[in-house]
């Protein structure tokens, strides 16, 4: 098989470019733990409110002893529940989200908090938010006529404010 010299050079360059991309992706995955959200875990979407993890009084925020926050959200036509969520910046967050009905997507624009919420599965995203403000949580997978109305606002406050609220000055007790 005859391959022109120029073509060989170009093929090498192309291989180099793609090799670079792949190396960066693999390196960031293996050395920095940067992954697409994946956590294969099933759940019965028909009886979420009767489950222990997604019971109505358990959805929302749970902070553990080390300050790590788990945010449990139920997506169902057409909202993300609970609707009032306040989170701190600079804190490791684990979002655990389920769907009551059909496939939803959820994305906080311009952040990496993005995942599909597929009924029958728990979607888990780990991230850290760096800026305080009102973060819209938008559904980005067609889920029916109300899809464009399915959204929520997450209020993000600074870690300092959060600490003051949770542990008011002089109060040595913890949650």
């Amino acid at each position: 098989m005859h391959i022109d010299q120029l073509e060989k050079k170009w093929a090498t360059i192309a291989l180099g470019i793609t090799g670079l991309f792949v190396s960066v992706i693999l390196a960031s995955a293996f050395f920095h733990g940067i992954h697409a959200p994946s956590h294969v875990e099933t759940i019965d979407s028909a009886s979420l409110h009767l489950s222990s993890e997604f019971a109505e009084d358990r959805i929302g925020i749970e902070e553990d002893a080390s300050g790590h926050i788990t945010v449990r959200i139920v997506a169902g036509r057409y909202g993300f529940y609970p609707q009032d969520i306040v989170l701190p910046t600079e804190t490791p967050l684990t979002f655990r989200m389920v769907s009551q009905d059909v496939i939803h997507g959820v994305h906080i624009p311009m952040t990496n908090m993005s995942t599909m919420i597929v009924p029958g599965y728990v979607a888990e995203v780990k991230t850290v938010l760096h800026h305080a403000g009102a973060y819209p949580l938008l559904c980005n997978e067609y889920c029916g006529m109300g899809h464009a109305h399915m959204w929520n606002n997450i209020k993000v406050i600074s870690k300092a404010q959060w600490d003051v609220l949770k542990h008011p000055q002089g109060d040595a007790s913890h949650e």
Partner: protein
Amino acid sequence: MNNAIEKKLALTHFWVAFGAFALACLMGIYQVIERSGFIGWIQSREVYYASTSTHGVLMAFVLTTFFIMGFGYYVATTTLKLPVWNKTFAWAGFWVSLTGVVLAALPLLTGAASVLYTFYPPMQAHVLFYIGATLLVVGSWFWCVSMLVMYMQWKKANPDQPVPLAMFATTANAILWLWTSAGVAAEVLFQLIPWVLGWVDTIDAGLARTLFAWTLHPIVYFWLIPAYTAFYCLVPKQAGGYLFTDEMARAAFIVLVVFSLPIGFHHLYMDPEQGSGWKLLHAVGTFVVTLPTFITGFTVIASLEIAGRLNGGKGLFGWIGALPWTNPLVLAIILSLLMLIFGGFGGLINASYAMNAMIHNTAWVSGHFHLIFGGTTIIMYFGIAYYFWPVLTGKPLFSNNLALIQLWTWFIGMVILTTPWHILGLLGQPRRIDKVNYNNLLTLSWEPYEITMIFGGLVLVASAGLLIYILAKTQFHVTETYDGEVEYAEPIHEVKSLPAYLNSFSMWNWVIAGYMLIAFGYPIAQFFLMKTYGSSPWGY
């Protein structure tokens, strides 16, 4: 051979394709205006989603499949110098597919199948939609068989001879389509239809998405390969030159087919039902499949350079101006390659594993595939149509100038439509919304892009109308005759013999099987090994 049968076969398929295209364009302009929210009285969620669903099905499944089949029949017959294998069989496939389209159109147009062209369960459409989609795909399998039979007939009659490149590519495409459509066929036959008919109560949405992802990437190569076939086998001749290399072209087609299949999970990067290890594996494969496009770019541009220099072009870039820009097929490839640069770049972003989180399911994705498919691929379909129409109808093209205008306006319209669309995605706008309702300041930044997109849509719909006008006028109103035939490009170095791996597919089918087993074996098996909870049907 006067090819009358094959000409009729090709023309009929092309008219179904372009008819679907024209209808879908009208829906497209409605959608872009409706979505902007600027004209109150046309707002309607029901109409919007019925339109988007129909638009998607027509563009992604009807325009493409019928065009590819028509193109394939005529390429096969002219490049192998054989009649179509079995005329009845070929027409039967056409009618099965067309029946499928009509059946699916009924619920689509009446809002009973507003589940979009991806039809993700557990949203459920009317049963006719799924049956129609099935028939469309089954009809296309008739075409695949025809291509394979003709290929094998020729090989038997010409042992050890290099298969003509255009047929090699077309056969590769037929094989690709059989492998590709298996995923969605399994989803429709084993999951969706039993569920819609009530034979089973629930459907596993995770498995459905996985099977659909099997199809979702290679299908775009099924669409692209005819464009690449034109790149390699038609354009160099039209430009007045030679194909830079025949062997590398074959290698590109093979790598394209083999590596487009085991990589579907880049459509599932954000999904919970597949593990990150598998997603990473598919990510690597996705980057491998960019290589044949890099190679194609080189080979094709090199071939164009030869043509330009043969035409008197001098200097580092002078050959570009010396190309016959007034030949519609040559203009089409130039504009196609320009759009390939940006569409391809967007694809690299999408492929980049975790980075996908920034643009997944945002408007960026819609902008991307309109640019790379509606732009790069479809403009080549137009170029091919302008080249084939005189051959198929026996009439010269109604107006070469109008054809050039149509191609330029398609390009300009696509750039105006998709550039803001990409930006909207970077600004976080979700996909598949019918209107912007979010009460957040972020949405204010979206408005100027929404307006710009409307202008893009208007240019495109005018361009689409012009295409149909030119093709119809040529076929029905031109009185002069034309009796030319399709001319295939010759390589600079004539190929007298080829190693088996560049001239047959048996080995590659095994390689594909192996790769698919690795890439999809466990990811599909897992649904049967773990306890899953299916979903009951939901409406929309």
